[in-house]
């Protein structure tokens, strides 16, 4: 039974996906029940496993494909961190999406690919070997494309093409890296760091670079970030998925796996590739913030904010000191909770008030109090206001930087905080302190849109307030770091 758990976790998304494709447009009830049921089941399974994994249990399933090609699914603490994030957010997004789409057309296709995306993300989280990781990583690429192009208008198709234009070459390089590595070491499993000494130093550095390009594209590391802002053409639930549940998270998670489980901290330091990565991440943090500042569309600003924030996770991985690792891992969850709140709210503003531009937010706070409160909570968290989640992350990263003897990172963090404030605070000011335009509309009459936003915002708040609890994201990240990387 326990060997089947990883498989079961995958099936909770795969089965709704497979059935959704074949449902007629008007089978609303069945489709909603399927997707919600799958999401609930998955959440339930994860809760059931949390305590066992905290106590040291590991669930493993092996599916041999061909010699050297083994699909290994394994639930360890790091996998569970990511999978519980994506499962929880999937549940919220599903509720939100059902309300968002209402009776709009092509829903079977949407929910089919949406669940397939979550299936791929779960697979990425559970992958215990490099090749399994790659298989699910590519599956994620493919199942995201129909979602980004869902509206089928020119902008969506352009965005979807741009996504593939980044994703396919980068994943090809990832495959080259994997094959190059495995031709020297044999299949790479994440629980035993492979012996790379068969390769010379420059080959190892080249492979590391290929890996970072391969997974970094999904994490939107500069200069591989261009696809993310243009993907804003997609419907709001897709943005939530891209920015919080699946895609960029998979990229950041991939960086963590590569640094800690493929190369190992010691070898990364020895090869001298950690610092360049940290510099790249820092550059991304600053560049994303600066670009966010220049945007006048809410969703575009949020998108560049994601570019910036996700690189905090990469920065934590690159610095590789204990506090930095904890901060980075915790931010994987923190950023997801805060960003999904913001995107849910942006979608509600668009749907219920017809507001897409920042200028349209004037005075909306009082007209749409729940949404605006959530939005404010998310934005303040992103800035890093104590005691919210973003603050916790930044403190840990800062200490980690000092541990890693990279004091310059403090300047980056400080600058980024200022920039975050510069691009979020004006929004809050408009929401709460400006007069509404005379013809402004806006209501919150669809609870299924608002409730997920509220829940996500409360979770983000809780993650910060209860950071000391062992089951908080920070507590869990500490557990992972102690168990896996400081052996």
């Amino acid at each position, binding site marked *: 039974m326990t060997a089947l758990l990883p498989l079961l976790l995958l099936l909770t998304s795969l089965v709704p996906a497979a059935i959704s*494709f074949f449902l007629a447009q008007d089978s609303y009830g069945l489709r909603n029940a399927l997707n919600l049921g799958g999401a609930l089941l998955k959440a339930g399974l994860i809760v059931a496993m949390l305590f066992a994994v905290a106590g040291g249990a590991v669930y493993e399933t092996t599916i*041999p*494909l*061909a*010699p*050297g*090609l083994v699909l290994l699914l394994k639930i360890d603490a790091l996998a569970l961190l990511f999978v519980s994030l994506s499962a929880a957010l999937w549940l919220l997004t599903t509720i939100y999406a059902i309300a968002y789409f209402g009776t709009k057309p*092509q829903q079977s*296709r949407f929910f089919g690919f949406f669940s397939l995306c979550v299936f791929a993300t779960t697979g990425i989280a559970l992958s215990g070997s490099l*090749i399994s990781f*790659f*298989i699910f990583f*590519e*599956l994620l*690429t*493919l199942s995201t494309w*129909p979602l980004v*192009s869902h509206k*089928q*208008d020119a902008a969506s*198709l352009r965005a*979807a*093409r741009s996504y*593939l234009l980044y994703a*396919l*070459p980068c994943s*090809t*390089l990832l*495959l*080259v890296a994997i*094959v*190059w590595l*495995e*031709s*020297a070491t044999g299949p790479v499993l994440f629980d035993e760091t492979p012996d790379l000494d068969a390769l010379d130093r420059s080959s190892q550095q080249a492979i590391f670079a290929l890996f970072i390009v391969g997974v970094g594209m999904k994490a939107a590391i500069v200069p591989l970030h261009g696809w993310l802002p243009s993907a804003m053409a997609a419907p709001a639930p897709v943005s939530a998925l891209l920015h919080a549940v699946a895609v960029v998270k998979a990229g950041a998670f991939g960086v963590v796996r590569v640094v800690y489980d493929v190369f190992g901290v010691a070898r990364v330091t020895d090869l001298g590739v950690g610092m360049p990565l940290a510099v790249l991440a820092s550059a991304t943090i600053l560049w994303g913030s600066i670009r966010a500042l220049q945007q006048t569309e809410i969703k575009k600003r949020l998108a560049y904010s994601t570019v910036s924030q996700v690189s905090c996770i990469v920065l934590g991985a690159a610095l590789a000191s204990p506090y930095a690792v904890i901060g980075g891992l915790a931010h994987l969850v923190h950023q997801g909770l805060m960003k999904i709140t913001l995107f849910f709210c942006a979608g509600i503003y668009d749907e219920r008030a017809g507001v897409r531009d920042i200028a349209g937010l004037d005075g909306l706070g009082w007209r749409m109090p729940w949404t605006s409160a959530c939005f404010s909570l998310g934005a303040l968290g992103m800035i890093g206001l104590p005691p919210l989640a973003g603050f916790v992350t930044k403190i840990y990263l800062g200490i980690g930087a000092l541990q890693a003897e990279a004091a310059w990172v403090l300047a980056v963090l400080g600058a980024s905080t200022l920039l975050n404030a510069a691009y979020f605070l004006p929004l809050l000011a408009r929401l709460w302190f400006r007069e509404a335009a005379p013809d402004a509309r806006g209501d919150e009459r669809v609870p299924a849109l608002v409730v997920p936003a509220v829940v996500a915002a409360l979770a983000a708040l809780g993650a910060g307030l209860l950071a000391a609890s062992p089951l908080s994201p920070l507590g869990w990240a500490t557990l992972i770091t102690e168990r896996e990387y400081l052996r």
Partner: protein
Amino acid sequence: MTALVALLALPLAGALAAVVLPHGAVRGMVPALSVAMLAATAVLVAGLSAQAPTRLKLGQWPPPVGIVLEVDGLAAALIAMTALVMTAAALAALRSEQPAAAGARAAFGFWPLMLLLWAALNAVFVSRDLFNLYVGLELLSLASVGLVAIGGKPEALAAAMRYMLFALVGSLLYLAGVVLVYAAHGTLDIGLLADRTPAKPDALALALMTAGLMAKTALFPFHVWLPPAHGSAPAPASAMLSALVPKASFVILLRLWFEAMPDRAQDGALVLLAVLGTAAVIWGSLRALLQTRLKLVVAYSTVAQIGYLFLVFPLAGGGSAEMPWSAGAWTGVLFLALAHGLAKAAMFLAVGQWMAVTGSDRLDAMRGLATAMPMTSFAFALAAVTLVGLPPSGGFTGKYLLMTSAFAAGQWMWALVLAGGGLLAAAYLYRPLAILFARADAPGPATLPTRGMQAIPLCLAGAAIALGIASETPFELLSIGRPAAAEDGS
């Protein structure tokens, strides 16, 4: 043994019957025959033991007097792929009005030619005699040319003529090599040849046969006949021609270089073959990018995909034969061949359905068809995933095995060919996919193919994906009688 005889005799008998019987009876016979072939294939594969491939001495005459047939993993896998593709193409042809639309002529000719093609493919896959392979190849070529000519339009005739000329040259070059082999060794049996002392003219014979088979396989620069031919045949015929026919001559190349004359393989020649394969990948892909007719995109893609197959020569032939990476290269290439066959057939059958609906295969006529025909479009997308080599598909398994082998052998440039080729494939397949999934300008077509009809290409594309998901069974099958592994056997 019985299964093997059935796999050879059934399509032959079916073809003879299809010439004589009235059209209605032929339509009734074809599904039954396909089922029987699938069953025989299943028995054949199940009966194959890992130790020794099945051998059949025809007429009980041992070589060099008689002809020997042998089913190894390679032959069994290709026979199985052929059975799937043929069954799908036959069902598609039965259900579509296309062959019949051209009148009684096409409706009469399609079935005998198709069944003769099937018989020829199976005969080539199992034959161990170089001259018998020649006769099989001729049967294959003539039936193929006939299928192209069914189209009837002037461009189809020109395409068939060009195909014919290349086929003739290919046959003669191959025959020249066979003549030299017999003159030098007094036998045409592949097994006996492997044990003979090499003779001086062997290199020339091998070169001539290889050149001829390259023309038949449409390897760059001998590919010019393929796109117009596959682009102007009826869709079910194109599916067979593109998915299966080039594989037959490729199998003979494998038999020659790895089984009949492995010790005569020069490193330079092996590399040259792979270089031509690389050129095919690049040139075929670039040409596919420029086409405005979907059938030609798919046909040029075959030119490119055939290129991959020739990477096997430097990685598993010559000095590499005894190296640990040769097995991966050999199996990887066969995975690619199988996946390409299934996916390419799915693509042509899908295009055929769109053509039946829109009356054209121009790319811009396909706009928004995904809404009206989601299953067919999904089949095309899955097939594209396989051809690009993305996981989880048979194409990915093949690419992964080949790339690993290339890096292990230190010949990383072939890995880059595979990687770059995948990107090029993504580029030329993206265009039709984006058009299919774009929003339709006009209301969808009035009459659509039934769901059953749409399911045919989907099943084939699904099989190409399943080849990657459940790749262990085909992997083991392909290992049976693998030349490098079978050095102890005779």
